[in-house]
């Protein structure tokens, strides 16, 4: 447990903090993109007066940035929805965007780096073509291998971006890749989803409450962008607490739905991570019901160690943790690809692709 995990579990710890603790906390919260979340947390617990001005300036600055990006995301959604409405293609908002559309608690503080959308499998080619017609282009550079990876193995088309705007658009047709071991019947998701209409007449679907949590869990434990990890764990906690208070029998229904959709293991991992690292408190009945999805004891112990390195690093960017991140990266691919396909993919990535850094001189203006 690092200081950020402690704050999430018990915000009042900050009343005993001095400069030393705040100095350790700031880089952790900044790196996990949870500065804005922490400001809301302190306010909700009546602790705002215990936050030093210097720290609060950072929390506040981060929230300002988040609200701006949220506005950009909503605008991009309206553009996409208008384009797809031409041919009556139904659209579902996922993850951060879904929380915004449905006005769920994370919308008060959650940052987004792109928008995630889902259309029906039968509509995805038409949706992509329409978006191209309306001006969206491939975001970043993709070689033929990347194209093949997205189209044939994953559950999405290569990321798109409109040249006039900065938001990346990811269009999916399911919550998990078609080649992975977890197969989700997307029709069941559509059947349970609710439709929202905003003040501009934009119509968009959002997953029903249990499915929102299950998607969070699937994404978290199949995702290779592990840097965003703890933020998603916090989303799980915030959504769980919200629905648990708002809907009678929610926890039971969540377990039943996980069984029905075949993603109990992901739910187990996500709930466990939220309990250990984000201060989620659940009823004993829920924990017992969940234990049926647990892996073998050695596998659970290994996973606990790996997740601790990612969700509770002592300092951001620690070398010791890099190995655990690498292991989780391979694991995330392992569960979504058959072994031979995985070996080919990782070999390709290791030899042919390089990560890009921010070029010096690109001051945002």
């Amino acid at each position, binding site marked *: 447990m690092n200081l950020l995990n402690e704050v999430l579990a018990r915000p009042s710890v900050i009343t005993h903090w001095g400069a030393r603790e705040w*100095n350790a906390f700031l880089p952790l919260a900044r790196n996990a993109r949870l500065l804005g979340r922490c400001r809301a947390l302190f306010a909700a617990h009546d602790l705002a007066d215990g936050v030093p001005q210097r720290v609060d300036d950072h929390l506040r*600055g*981060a929230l300002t940035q988040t609200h*701006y990006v949220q506005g950009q995301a909503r605008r991009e959604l309206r553009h996409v929805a208008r384009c797809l409405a031409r041919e009556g293609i139904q659209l579902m908002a996922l993850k951060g965007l879904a929380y915004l559309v449905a006005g769920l608690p994370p919308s008060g503080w959650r940052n987004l780096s792109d928008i995630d959308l889902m259309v029906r499998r039968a509509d995805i080619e038409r949706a992509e073509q329409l978006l191209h017609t309306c001006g969206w282009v491939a975001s970043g550079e993709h070689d033929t291998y990347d194209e093949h990876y997205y189209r044939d193995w994953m559950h999405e088309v290569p990321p798109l971006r409109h040249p006039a705007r900065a938001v990346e658009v990811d269009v999916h047709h399911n919550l998990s890749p078609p080649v992975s071991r977890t197969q989700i019947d997307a029709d069941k998701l559509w059947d349970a989803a609710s439709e929202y209409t905003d003040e501009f007449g934009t119509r968009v679907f959002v997953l029903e409450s249990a499915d929102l949590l299950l998607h969070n869990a699937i994404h978290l434990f199949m995702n290779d962008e592990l840097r965003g990890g703890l933020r998603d764990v916090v989303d799980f906690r915030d959504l769980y607490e919200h629905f648990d208070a708002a809907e009678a029998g929610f926890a039971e229904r969540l377990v039943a739905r996980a069984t029905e959709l075949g993603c109990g293991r992901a739910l187990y991992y996500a709930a466990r991570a939220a309990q250990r690292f984000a201060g989620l408190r659940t009823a004993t009945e829920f924990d017992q019901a969940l234990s049926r999805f647990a892996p073998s004891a050695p596998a659970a112990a290994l996973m606990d160690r790996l997740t601790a390195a990612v969700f509770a690093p002592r300092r951001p*960017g620690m070398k010791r943790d890099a190995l655990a991140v690498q292991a989780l990266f391979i694991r995330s691919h392992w569960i979504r690809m058959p072994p031979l396909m995985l070996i080919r993919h990782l070999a390709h990535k290791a030899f042919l692709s390089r990560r890009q850094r*921010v070029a*010096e001189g690109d001051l*945002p203006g």
Partner: protein
Amino acid sequence: MTEQSLILDTGPFRVTVRSFDRTFLDTVRFFYHDGICTDPDPLVDFDIRLVRRQGARRWVRPQVQFEIDGVRPFEPQPLENAYPVYEWGLNWCIATSAHRYLMLHAGTVAFGDDAMILSGLPGSGKSTLSAALQLRGARLLCDEFGLLVPESGRLLPMPRPIPLKNTSIEAIAAFDGSAPLGPTYPKTRKGRVRHLRPSAASVALGERAATPRWLLFPRYRAGQTADLQALDRDTALHRLALNCFNYKLLGGDAFRALCDLVDQAGCYEFVFSDLNQAVACLHGLAQGEGSHEPAE
């Protein structure tokens, strides 16, 4: 070699800077000796480390890399440029996170508590002009950022070394033979760079806010006589909004803050070449001489 650290107070920000490189730390001490934090248990905004790149290349062409929160967002640079890399990296940290302020991309100086804003794109001469004004007694707020508090409309100082580029270096050396200049960095990504240390008086008042009174858009034009022309508020607002680091991000708050700013400050275009002449002209403006009434 052991890593050493210094804690610097620079306007509203406090920075820990860590490095193994003695030369680099000596340079930091030269520039910030009036701003070294003396608090025994300080809370800091940014914890920055300049790391020397490991590997075979370190013997042939040693390199340095900027690290914040354990993350290295930029490509490594030649070791001899460690100091400009630090200054530039700190600017990046501030520009990408200090959204508690509206950040004008401008040089800012003050006469007492009355601030003069010099807004301009790189190459307009705003750093050179800020440097020259400070060398003749104005208080340096900052040569690169105007940190505007949206609620109060006041500017916070951040008196840091001014990076003079290329021919500005000679211009300032000729303007004031005793200007406290640091080492020359002949080959940086922005050309030849040499920093001017801010005056002790500017650093001593590093927490004292100032009210914007004059908004100028300077333009260096070789051979031109200093010329100050009143500018209408709408044009001034538009130009200033386009030259902020986070105007769009602050949205309505930014718009209202800049409306207030152009309402309370006189707005001008300023063409100059000779620094003595330019400084005399701006001193005149600050002292209310001549007929430089703001445009209505």
